[in-house]
């Protein structure tokens, strides 16, 4: 199930107010018959860029905090199944645990 998103994290015009940015989220089921619910909402924008530690604050617009083999870091959001060149050279758009989104890893 996908909640009606409040905004589009990958769009240039996300629909969020100034000072805010659009970030995807997932709500996990608490029972065996539930399903994961995905959505996106507007929250105050951080400034963490690709490779920055999440501990420094929130991630910049178009980025998301993920736990990688190097710790928690902000990575650029990308859409799976789309041209990989959207990620910086040398990185790949790989699955993260939010349906439909990938991270440049």
């Amino acid at each position: 199930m996908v909640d009606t998103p409040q905004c589009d994290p990958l769009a240039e015009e996300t629909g969020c107010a100034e000072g805010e940015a659009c970030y995807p989220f997932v709500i996990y089921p608490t029972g065996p018959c539930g399903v994961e619910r995905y959505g996106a909402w507007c929250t105050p924008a951080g400034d963490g860029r690709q490779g920055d530690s999440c501990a420094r604050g929130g991630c910049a617009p178009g980025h998301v905090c993920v736990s990688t083999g190097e710790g928690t870091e902000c990575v650029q959001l990308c859409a799976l199944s789309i041209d990989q060149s959207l990620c910086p050279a040398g990185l790949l758009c790989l699955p993260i645990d939010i349906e439909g989104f990938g991270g440049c890893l």
Partner: protein
Amino acid sequence: MPVMASNRALGAGVLASALLVAASSCGGRGEPLSNKSRLWVPLPVLDAGSDYCLTQTDCESSDRCEPRRCVENRCVAEPVLCDDGDPCTDDSCNSGSGECVFEPLTADRDGDGYPPPRPGFSRLDPTACGSDCDDSSAQSFPGNAEVCDGLDNDCDGVVDNGARFIADPSRVIDLASDAITASTGGIAYSDASYGVVFSQQTADARNMQTTFASIPPDGVQTPTPVPIALVPNDTFAGPIVWTGQFFASVWEDRRDDDYEIYFNRLNPAGQKLDPDRRLTQAPGFSLRPSISFDGVSELRVAWDDRRDGTGYSIVYGQRLTLAGEPIAANGALTPMELEAISPVLASGEQRLGMAFMAARVGQPRVVAFRSFAHDFSDPSDIVVLSGGNAAQQSMVFNEGPSGGRFIAAWHVEDERGIPGASIHGTIVSEAGDIVAPERPLTEPADFARSHALLPLGDRVILFWAQSVDGRYDIHARELSADLEPLGPASRVTQVMTQAYGPAVAVGRQGQIGVLFHANVPESGRQHVFFTSLACAAAQGPN
């Protein structure tokens, strides 16, 4: 019934020349009697705590290993001594029968007539009580003939002596053909098939599901995937090992509203042998598990989590019996003052090695190493293997003809996580001494990342992804046991684009199975694929 009460009544340090007790024929044994009505029984002076007896019956013991005899009114212990003179048996006495039991310290589980060495002993050590180099396979034992089967048949420390491995990039099967997206986990080989684990999200299940597939040795049939973690929350596959009897796998699982480490045993078809076992109960995510089999009796798992409230992760470990039962509790394997993540375990001959990413606050990440006794005790000092900004380390134990060493590899990346041009590696002794300094293992490419090592004794095969002109492919290269190149790199993948993340295992026809992640050409979806390298030539009996 012994007359212990009377003895105790004397009290320590109290001397008495005699103690009046009733003879057993009088009834009321042990009761002081009038000296007018009953016989006086003169008794010796007794030390406090000694056993007094009148008859052998008074010395009866339920422990048949500790029988006692009544000697001069004292119960004297005459324990059964069990010693068969064999240092390779555990000698004990059965308390119920009183018979000696002589259990071998190592058991020949694969039935080839050669038990493995005791844990922590080299098989070349005469006191190791065993010399089998692989007790999970009856095809490996000292003196056997070497054939091309991915095993060290003759236990000379070399797998498939002289064999060459040839890739066929056209032979590729999609293991996640129904998936919206998928990512790799691990691969191992049983006696008859590959067992692979990966994560996939299908249209039927909106979460990432840890999934198993059994692949026959020829690797040409598309298998039917079997979900392992049947929960509605995300689970991500981890590594898998074969123990000679079952696969053992660990994975990250969010069924508890928080990623925890789960474990199970699987038969070669992927059927679970037990209910899933949760290994962690930690606040915050528990991630990136690694599993190692000691070749004899235990599995070891390591992962990283943040249970200690430090704000960063450290590495924890858990021992498991081959029945999947935990031995003791989770234990910290790295110090609190060091951020430590992504552990990789490798079982050596005498020590258990662990490579991990480490960083102190404000310092760049490095690859670090420490070793333990096989029960996670006796940790070595932590040594740094890499320069700064290392990533995605892997490690194997390479048991060469002249002794075993750990080989670690990693790639480097800049502050944005962009990979460097080469895979780097080094060699570490079981005690944690760096045997060879860090060096590049591959020729420079645009980018190089995500790798796997396959130890063969006298050589190691490195698999990695390298990018040229915006396209990643998996490559392979043979290296000597000292990490010197033995030839040029060869391409393992060609059809799929953006292939990366190889995991490898050797099959019983000597073929090397390669699990990897790539884009499906038509749809652009990301799936998990399998290909293999054929064993081109094996040396005959040597």
